[in-house]
C-alpha cells in the first residue's frame, strides 16, 4: 500500500502538482491515523495533505481512481446459475457459432486485410474464445493479459491522456470485443434453436452484457493507470527546461515552450513582487515623519531613539503602447501578462495596441482574465498587410486619449521602432515626454540594428529616459523590475 501511495504521489507530481517531501510524510501519517478501510475517508485524508491549491483538485480527482480504483466492478460467473443440461446446450450453441465464425473468417481471409484487423483470423478466434471464457465464467483478466493486450494496442508509446480513448478502442478491438458483438447478436437465436428456455437465455444475455461493461471498465482503468505511470517515467526535467527557455529569444519559441513560459510568468511575478517590496523597505528616502517618530518612541519617554521617515511610496501609473505586428506578438503577450499579474503593484495601467492606428485594449483586461483577454485582443487585431505607423498612432493617441497621460504616468513603448518610412512625428513624442513623467522603450532588436533601414529608434532615443532590450523572458523580467522600482 505504501508503494501505491508513493506511486500516486509521483503520478501527481508528473501531472504538475507540487508536492514536497514533508507533505508526502504528512500523507503517510494521515493515512495511518485515518485508516484505509473507508475509501472516502482515505481519499479525503490524502487530498487534505497533498493538494494545497484549488486548481490542483481536479487533477487529484482524476488520478485517484486510477491508482486506488477497485479495478472496476468484478465479473460475475454466469455458468453458476445454469443447470447441467443448460450448460450442455450452451456449449453446443457456442461450438456451432464458433464453427460458423471460423468458416466466415476463412472466406474473408481471401479478401484484403481490413483496417484495424491486425491479427490473423486464427488469432482472432483464439482471442474470442478467451473473451468468452472471461465473460461466461466471470474470470477477471490478469494483469499480464491486460498488459499484453495493451502492448499490442501500442500503449507503451502513448503518454497523453487524450490518447486514452483511442487506445482503449484499439485494445478492445484487439481483444475481439467487436467479434463478440456479432456473436452476442447471434447467440440468443442459436440457444433458442438448441432448446434453452427463454428466461434462461434472457438472464444469460443480461449477465454477459453486464460482464462486458465491467470488462470495458477494467480495461479503461488499466489504460489510465499505465498512462499515468508512463508519464511519470517520461517526465522531462521541467525546471531545467524552464530555466533554459528564459534565455531563448521569443521568436524561437515553439507553442509548447511558450506554454511552459506562461506558467513561469506567475512565478516570476511573485519574485518581482517580493523584490520590489524588499527594496522599498530598505530604501532610505523621505523626510522625517515627526508624528510616527514620537509614537514609536513612547517607550523611551519621548526621547527620539528610533527615527521614522515618511515612506509614502506612490505606485507607478503605466501607459503601455504596444506594437502588435507579428514579430512583436510574443513580447507583447508576455509583457501584458506580467503587467496584469502585477496589478497590485501599479496604480493604474492603460494599454493600447497599434499597427497603423491605435486601439485601446484595457477594457478586455478589465473584463477577462489575462490569457483570455490576450487571445481576444490578438484575434481582433490581425496584422494583414498594414504597415506599422507609429506616427499616426501617436496622433490618434494625442487626439483621443491625451487625458491618460499625466505627470505621474510612465509611458512605455513596446516596439522595434520600424515605421516603414512613415513620419515618426517626433513633435508628438516631445509632447508626450513633457506631459508624462518619463518615457521608456522596450525593443527586442539588438542595439546594432537600431537606425538601420526603416528604424527610427535613433530618432526616438533622445526622448526616452531608458531603453531596454527585451529579446527573451529573462530580459523582460529585468525591464519590468526596473520599471517598478524606479519610483
Amino acid at each position, binding site marked *: 500500500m505504501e508503494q501505491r501511495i508513493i506511486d500516486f504521489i509521483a503520478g501527481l507530481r508528473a501531472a504538475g502538482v507540487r508536492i514536497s517531501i514533508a507533505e508526502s510524510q*504528512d500523507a503517510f501519517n494521515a493515512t495511518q491515523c485515518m485508516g484505509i478501510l*473507508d475509501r*472516502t475517508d482515505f481519499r479525503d485524508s490524502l487530498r*487534505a*495533505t497533498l493538494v*494545497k*491549491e484549488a486548481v490542483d483538485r481536479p487533477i487529484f480527482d482524476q488520478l485517484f481512481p486510477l491508482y486506488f480504483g477497485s479495478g472496476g466492478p468484478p465479473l460475475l460467473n454466469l455458468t453458476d446459475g445454469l443447470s447441467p443440461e443448460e450448460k450442455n446446450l450452451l456449449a453446443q450453441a457456442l461450438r456451432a457459432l464458433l464453427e460458423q465464425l471460423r468458416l466466415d473468417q476463412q472466406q474473408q481471409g481471401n479478401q484484403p486485410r481490413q483496417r484495424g484487423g491486425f491479427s490473423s483470423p486464427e488469432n482472432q478466434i483464439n482471442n474470442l474464445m478467451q473473451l468468452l471464457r472471461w465473460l461466461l465464467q466471470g474470470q477477471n483478466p490478469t494483469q499480464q493479459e491486460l498488459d499484453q493486450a495493451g502492448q499490442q494496442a501500442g500503449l507503451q508509446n502513448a503518454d497523453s491522456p487524450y490518447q486514452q480513448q483511442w487506445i482503449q478502442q484499439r485494445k478492445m478491438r484487439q481483444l475481439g470485443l467487436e467479434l463478440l458483438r456479432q456473436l452476442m447478436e447471434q447467440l440468443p437465436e442459436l440457444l433458442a434453436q438448441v432448446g434453452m428456455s427463454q428466461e434462461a437465455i434472457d438472464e444469460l444475455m443480461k449477465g454477459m452484457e453486464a460482464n462486458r461493461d465491467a470488462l470495458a471498465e477494467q480495461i479503461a482503468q488499466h489504460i489510465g493507470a499505465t498512462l499515468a505511470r508512463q508519464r511519470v517515467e517520461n517526465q522531462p526535467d521541467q525546471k531545467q527546461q524552464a530555466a533554459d527557455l528564459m534565455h531563448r529569444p521569443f521568436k524561437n519559441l515553439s507553442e509548447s515552450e511558450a506554454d511552459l513560459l506562461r506558467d513561469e510568468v506567475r512565478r516570476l511575478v511573485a519574485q518581482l513582487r517580493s523584490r520590489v517590496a524588499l527594496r522599498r523597505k530598505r530604501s532610505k528616502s523621505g523626510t522625517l515623519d515627526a508624528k510616527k517618530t514620537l509614537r514609536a518612541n513612547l517607550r523611551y519617554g519621548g526621547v527620539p531613539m528610533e527615527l521614522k521617515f515618511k515612506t509614502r511610496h506612490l505606485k507607478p501609473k503605466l501607459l503601455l503602447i504596444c506594437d502588435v505586428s507579428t514579430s512583436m506578438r510574443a513580447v507583447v503577450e508576455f509583457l501584458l501578462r506580467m503587467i496584469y499579474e502585477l496589478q497590485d503593484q501599479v496604480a493604474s495601467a492603460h494599454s493600447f495596441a497599434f499597427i497603423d492606428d491605435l486601439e485601446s485594449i484595457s477594457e478586455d483586461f478589465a473584463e477577462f482574465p489575462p490569457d483570455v483577454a490576450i487571445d481576444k485582443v490578438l484575434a481582433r487585431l490581425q496584422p494583414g498587410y498594414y504597415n506599422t505607423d507609429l506616427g499616426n498612432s501617436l496622433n490618434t493617441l494625442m487626439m483621443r486619449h491625451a487625458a491618460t497621460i499625466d505627470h505621474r504616468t510612465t509611458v512605455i513603448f513596446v516596439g522595434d521602432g520600424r515605421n516603414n518610412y512613415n513620419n515618426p512625428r517626433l513633435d508628438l513624442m516631445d509632447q508626450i515626454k513633457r506631459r508624462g513623467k518619463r518615457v521608456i522603450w522596450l525593443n527586442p532588436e539588438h542595439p546594432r540594428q537600431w537606425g538601420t533601414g526603416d528604424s527610427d529608434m535613433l530618432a526616438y532615443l533622445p526622448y526616452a529616459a531608458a531603453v531596454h532590450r527585451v529579446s527573451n523572458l529573462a530580459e523582460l523580467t529585468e525591464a519590468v523590475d526596473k520599471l517598478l522600482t524606479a519610483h
Partner: protein
Amino acid sequence: MSDATVKIKEQLASQQYIASDEITTVIYLAEQLGKPILSEGPAGVGKTELSKAWAGATCRRLIRLQCYEGLDETKALYEWEYAKQMLYTQLLRDKLQDVIGHVSSLREAADRIAAEEEIFFSERFLLPRPLLQALTSPEPVVLLIDEIDRSDVEFEAFLLEVLSDFQVSVPELGTIQAKHRPTVFLTSNNTRELSEALKRRCLYLYLDYPDVEAELNIVRLKVPDLAPELARQAVELVHQLRNLDLKKSPSISETLDWARALVQLNAKQLDEKTVETTMTVLLKHETDITRAKRALARRGANGGTNKPGPAGFDPDDMGSYRVFGRK
C-alpha cells in the same frame, strides 16, 4: 465513516453547523496530527463559522487574530506596556532611594538596580496579544487567524515560526512553550498566493458553495420559520443566480439573510415583486442586479415551454418558476 468522524459531525451539528464528510475528516486529522487547517474558498461559505462552531463544540475558548496589511509582531504576539512601566517608575521613585541606599560609586548603584531588573520586564508588564494568549493559555484553545491572505509576506514568515514549533522567545523572559497545542484555523479568500512554506505546514480544506440539498438543510436549520416550499424555491433561485456570470455570486450567508428577510416580510410566495424588492439582500453590485433581473425575466418568458432558455438555464428547473409565466 469511522466513529470518530461521526462524533465530530454530531458535535458540529450541535453547534448548528452542517459539516460535509471532508470537513470532518480534516478536523479529525488536524486534531490527531496537530497540524493547522488552512481553509480557502469564496467569501461567506462558512470558513470562520467552522472555527467558531468547533470551539463551541469542544468547549474551548476561541482566540481570534484578524489579519490586515501592516500587521506586525507587536500587534500579533506581544507588546510591553510602556505607559504602565513608566507610571510604576514614577510612583516608585521614592522607594528607589531605599533600594540604592548608601553607595559609594555609580557602578554599585547601577548593580543594585540591575538586581531588581526583573520587576520591570516581568509578565506583569507584558501585554499578550492573540498569538501569545493562545500559547500561554492554561486550557486548550482554538486559534483563528482570519484572512491571512490580507497580511503581508513578512508576517507570514513570522507566523511560520510560531506555527511550526508553538513556542516563542521573548528576549527578556526567555522561551515560552505552549502548554497545550491550540487547534489553529487559517482562512483565506485567495486574493493572493500564500507562501508555499505556510501551505506545506497546513492541512488544506477547500470550501465551495454547497449543492441544493445541503444548502436547503442549512436554511432549514438556521431559519426554521421559513415555510419549506418557499425555502426550496429560494435556494433554487440562489443556485440559478450562481450559474450566472456575476461579479460577486451570493454566498451562503447572503442566502440566510435573504431567508430571514423573507420571513420578516411575511412573504407567501416568490413572485416577481418580492424578488425584485429583496434582490439587494442577495446581490451587492448594481451590474449584478440588472443582469439577474434580465435573466429572471427571460426565464419567465420561457417558463411553461420546454425551450431551453439562454444563459444555460436548465429547463428541468422550470417547475418552481411557473409563477413568472403566469402573467
